């Protein structure tokens, strides 16, 4: 049922209904059947080729059977200290306030000071007894389900290029972001919504802004649509235009386009543009419906902390977490959820150079409960069976304080990110930094490997997911990347 350009109302409507049914059955069998069905019906994309120009968001099959269908990325901007969160370094207590033997004299921001102990108490958590700090008590309760990678490295020690590197695989500007790559490769389940949604922190945009959700040289279709509980999708309605005038204009446009198409029969580009207006009209209805959190029961709002009157930023972030769940529920392929904004001396993000503890107390209170509630909620609703949750940050922080300061400088040589949910091994800690947490020493993984693993879980081979640009077959992982098999379920 590959529809011709004259069936403009909704391509593959019936098919999508069946997809929806199979998808919601939420089993591995379901996704195998889905792949089979898509293949049989000629809707399988050709991986590595440009997506179908007329229907760029139509679902496409991955390279191999996927473990996850959707992704939520919780992106903590500003570089979260691994030493205050997930990477327990008891040796630092012994070395507290002593110079680091053989340590660097100067780091990113200037002269290095003495080593500093973890600023929060660590205690064993769950069945695995994983040591996690008291900074993030709610997330700490989930460690039995999480696969930690403690030995990641970045190519840059500067926020902008490093956020680029995490989000696009290149430190330079202008390359497609991971969400754009995935939309390009897989399309999306719900044709009434974008494939890739970026939920911005209530405090503002992250350091490197739109490059984290840009489409680079991929078609613009695949860029992240920014959205948040505070700032809804732009241009959903025409200011000052009544519904009758809107309807009249829409009818007239339909008539103009239909006659024009009659003059140019068979031109797929024209048909695709007509279809895009129909999808836009559906988004005008679906987006406000999803944004309306008043339909969430009080206990859900409470669980996320969305009703916290004392901490409006936390409540705002919690609302974004609820939005993330709703988008995943409705089949959005990739949701990027930002925690933390731009450079601000660590006031608005995790860039704790000077007053780390004071600032982290505030930041963790915003992140912890809502993010943990999101993961729990996804699990409770069975969505975690098909959804991969990624927690990441652009690099880590140094084991010593900066000279004359109570905070840590940038450290791209060994830091922690984690994954949980679909296809991820539970309760595992992979990779090791040295005993002071200065650099990764075992199972070292540049972020290329992290992104390769993410693609793998979605059924994509990072070496085959390519796009030709100016003479180079570009990849998310450049010419690097190895799947981190140790964290796969």
């Amino acid at each position, binding site marked *: 049922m590959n529809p011709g350009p004259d069936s403009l109302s909704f391509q593959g409507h019936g098919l999508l209904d069946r997809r929806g049914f199979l998808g919601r059955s939420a089993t591995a069998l379901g996704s195998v059947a889905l792949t089979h069905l898509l293949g049989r019906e000629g809707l399988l994309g050709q991986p590595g080729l440009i997506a179908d*120009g007329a229907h*760029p968001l139509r679902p496409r099959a991955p390279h191999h059977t996927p473990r996850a269908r959707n992704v939520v990325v919780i992106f903590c901007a500003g570089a979260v200290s691994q030493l205050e969160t997930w990477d327990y370094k008891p040796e630092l207590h012994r070395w507290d306030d002593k110079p680091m033997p053989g340590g*660097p004299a*100067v*780091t*990113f*921001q200037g002269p290095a000071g003495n080593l500093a102990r973890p600023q929060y108490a660590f205690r064993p958590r769950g069945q695995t007894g994983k040591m996690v700090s008291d900074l993030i008590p709610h997330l700490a309760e989930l460690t039995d389900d999480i696969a930690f990678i403690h030995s990641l490295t970045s190519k840059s*020690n*500067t*926020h*902008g*290029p490093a956020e680029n590197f995490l989000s696009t695989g290149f430190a*330079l*500007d*202008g*390359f497609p972001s991971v969400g754009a790559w995935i939309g390009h490769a897989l399309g999306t389940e719900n044709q009434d919504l974008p494939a890739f949604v970026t939920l911005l922190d209530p405090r*503002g*945009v992250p350091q490197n*802004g*739109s490059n984290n959700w*840009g489409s*680079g*040289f991929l*078609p*613009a279709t695949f860029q992240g649509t920014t959205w948040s509980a505070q700032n809804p999708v732009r*241009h*959903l309605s*025409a*200011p*000052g235009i009544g519904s*009758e*005038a809107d309807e*009249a*204009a*829409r009818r*007239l*446009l339909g*008539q*103009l386009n239909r*006659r*024009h*198409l009659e003059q*140019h029969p*068979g031109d797929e*580009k024209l048909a695709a*543009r*007509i*279809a895009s*207006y129909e999808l*836009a009209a559906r*988004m*005008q209805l679906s987006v406000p419906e999803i944004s309306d959190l008043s339909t969430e029961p009080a206990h859900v709002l409470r669980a996320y902390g969305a009703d916290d009157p004392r901490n409006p930023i936390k409540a705002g972030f919690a609302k974004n977490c609820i939005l993330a769940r709703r988008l995943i529920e409705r089949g959005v392929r990739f949701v990027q959820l930002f925690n933390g904004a*731009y450079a601000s001396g660590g006031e608005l993000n995790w860039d704790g150079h000077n007053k780390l503890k004071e600032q982290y107390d505030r930041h963790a209170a915003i992140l912890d409960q809502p993010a943990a509630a999101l993961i729990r909620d996804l699990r409770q609703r069975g969505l975690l069976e098909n959804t991969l949750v990624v927690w990441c940050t652009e690099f880590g922080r140094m084991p010593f304080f900066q000279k004359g300061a109570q905070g840590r400088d*940038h450290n791209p040589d060994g830091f922690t990110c984690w994954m949980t949910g679909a296809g991820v091994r539970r309760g595992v800690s992979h990779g090791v930094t040295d005993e002071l947490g200065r650099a990764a020493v075992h199972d070292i993984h*540049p972020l290329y490997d992290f992104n390769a693993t993410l693609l793998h879980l979605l059924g994509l081979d990072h070496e085959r997911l390519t796009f*030709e640009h*100016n*003479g*180079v077959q570009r990849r998310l992982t*450049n010419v690097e990347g190895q799947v981190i098999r140790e964290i796969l379920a």
Partner: protein
Amino acid sequence: MQRFTPIGFLYLAALLWGAAVSGASPAPDETRHWAFEPLSREAPPHPNAAGWARTIPDLWVLDALEKAGLDPSPEADRVAWLRRVHFDLTGLPPDPQACQAFEQDPRPDAPERVVEALLQSPAHGERWGQHWLDVVRYADTHGFEVNTERPHAWPYRDYVIGAFNADRPYPEFIREQLAGDQSGRDAATGFLVTASVLLPGQIGADEVSKRLARQDALDEIVVNTSQSFLGLSIGCARCHDHKFDPISSRDYFGMQAFFAGVEYGDRPLNDPESQARRDRLRDWRQRKSVVEASLSRMDPIARPGSPTHHPPTRVAVRARMNTDRFVPVTARRLRFTVLRTPSLEPCLDEVEVWSPDGRNVALASAGTRVSSSGDTTVENRHELRFVHDGVYGNSHSWMSSEKGRGWVVLEFPEPRRIDRVSWGRDREGEFADRLATDYRIEVETDTGDWITVADASDRKPFEGANPTDDEREIPLSGLDPKTRQEAQALLAERLRLEREIAGAVASQQAFAGIFRKPDRIHLLRRGDPEQPGPEVAPGVPEVLGSMRLPADAPESERRRALAHWLAQSGQALIARVMVNRIWQGHFGTGLVDTPSDFGRTGSRPSHPGLLDWLAGEFMASGGSSKHLHRLIVLSSTYRQSSRLRPEAAARDADARLLWRYPPRRLDSEPIRDAMLAVSGELDRRRGGRGFDLFDQRGGLSGFKPVESFPPEGLRRMVYAHKVRREPEAVFGAFDCPDAGQSTARRRESTTPIQALNLWNSRFTLERSSAFARRVRHEAGAEPRDQIQRAFRLALARQATGPEEQEALEAVHAQGLEVLCRALFNSNEFLFLP
């Protein structure tokens, strides 16, 4: 056991490193590649239906069609071609008069005349300059995390537009962009530094970070040069010998060495235009002081010590400038005492003391000395000496050490006859805080007495807000009619002069690179600055030539040598790359559909003979783009209808063989420009700083888009202040490049976000209203006339009967704006016919 290096590409580098350091060149057969071969000089073919051809390129196209068993399409109707060629050559639609004139022009050379006029129009460079700016990823911000303004980038943008308008011979265009500082085209070298760059504060304090940042900055110059001119991705060889093309790491660093003395930064312009601008600037400044002197003589005389119940005769103090005029007096010293500010320590920009013949006797250069009650000194910003240094602005001003008060005394070398004082908080008008709202001016006469010559007692009370610039400092109502007229003329002249001066000051420098002693360039193992290999001297890639310079060649010679080598005649590759870009501009796809990759991984040309013939023609014409435009847009190939023919589409869906004119959606800029042209609002002012697309830079909510543009924002989009990576809120979604990486060819995507933007944005609604106003004005009150006029303006044709009927119903029920909005969103409006 470190697996990861800062640059990466490790495994390839490991394989290829041996070859690179041993100096082994690629095997001979690897260097043979069609794009590197000389032009073929093949004679044009003789297709059977050669009578169809109008220009030589047609022969090649028709020949290929015949060989594939395809027929060309019939000619498009006259207006379709006219609309096509207008958008194509200028990025703007034809207006109804142009359509009518062309339709009624019986002369056989009417199309040639149209093309000539379009090529002469300044709009031509605005459109074709944009294509080049895409390739070189031009933007008005620095990119990366701070993405702050690059305020003097635009002279390069204007240079590019001007070069296309002037049909600058391509070899010259190349030479100027690499070494225009040596030929009086300073702004042209903006080409070298179009990339994103980390500013000093963003680079780590550690040496490793600094070395890596410098390498990245140099890499961008090599990439820009090789992609734009050579159509080769040499950048890969930074870390390893090129995987597919015969470019070694040594070749790469040899190229880098040509730019080893280039820094990203502003450079004062020294080209003839700038010299002339500087001369004009001096004249304008002189004239402005004369105007101000004349104006101040119309000021009411100050009446110090006026009783409070007296009605004020003078205007309130202003932050920018105030004048106090008094009866001429001979003074040894003058004391300016601040008695009150709204808050903080007072700040005085320049204090000028005028003689009756209009000389400023307060200047330090006139021998006057200054003392004060105490200073808050901020080096090079607030210093006492700045109060009479003749330089305006907050960054050259005096600040008192006390809140709300303070004084300065100017001591003249000998008693001076004076009659007025001019002073302000910030003569450049940026700052309005720290203003002296109450003050006293006293002079010490030659008898040694101090007398007060002016104070604020006869001024209107200061009301807090900063008066706008246009508020007159002279109460015109108090003047006799003749003087009032004179004053008005002077005020108008001063406003004009201020604008000219501001413009000229802004164009004194350009972000066009700073040139210094070159760094030594080393071959870097895996591209890692921490693993330097042998030193590399400037040299072009071996496969392309043998031009080499000594390792100690001076900076300017390096760029000059490379520029001349690239621009020399007989560079087949360079000509092929450029003619292909031009062909792509006309047909959406080049003869080679990988316009910045003429290497081995790039596509082969669809019409190799034609590509080489065009390249030969281009070289023979001295590199004239306009010559190629004429050949192409007047060809039978270009004049074909765009109508889809299923039997042909079944064989060649993308029309690479050009059996029809391939229709395509307009790019983002022509959509916006066309909406403004049709609504009658397009502001055709050219050049200068770009208009803002965003209200706010960075900050809490990121870049906040302008929703409703002031008139300045209704200029062509090429004149927007281009914020890197930040898509314009409405048109960015139409695949507008983000200036992160080079865009040699724009994508053409179709998305619901585009539809939402074009359907619901305030921009569209405002243009629809203006369009409707225009139509009512031009067509009168009769709805049928209005509908016909709207179709003419937007689509260059009449509405058909059924269209008119449908439109009539909608217009009748909901107003003309409904039709205007629908037309702006219609496929016919958005696609090249």
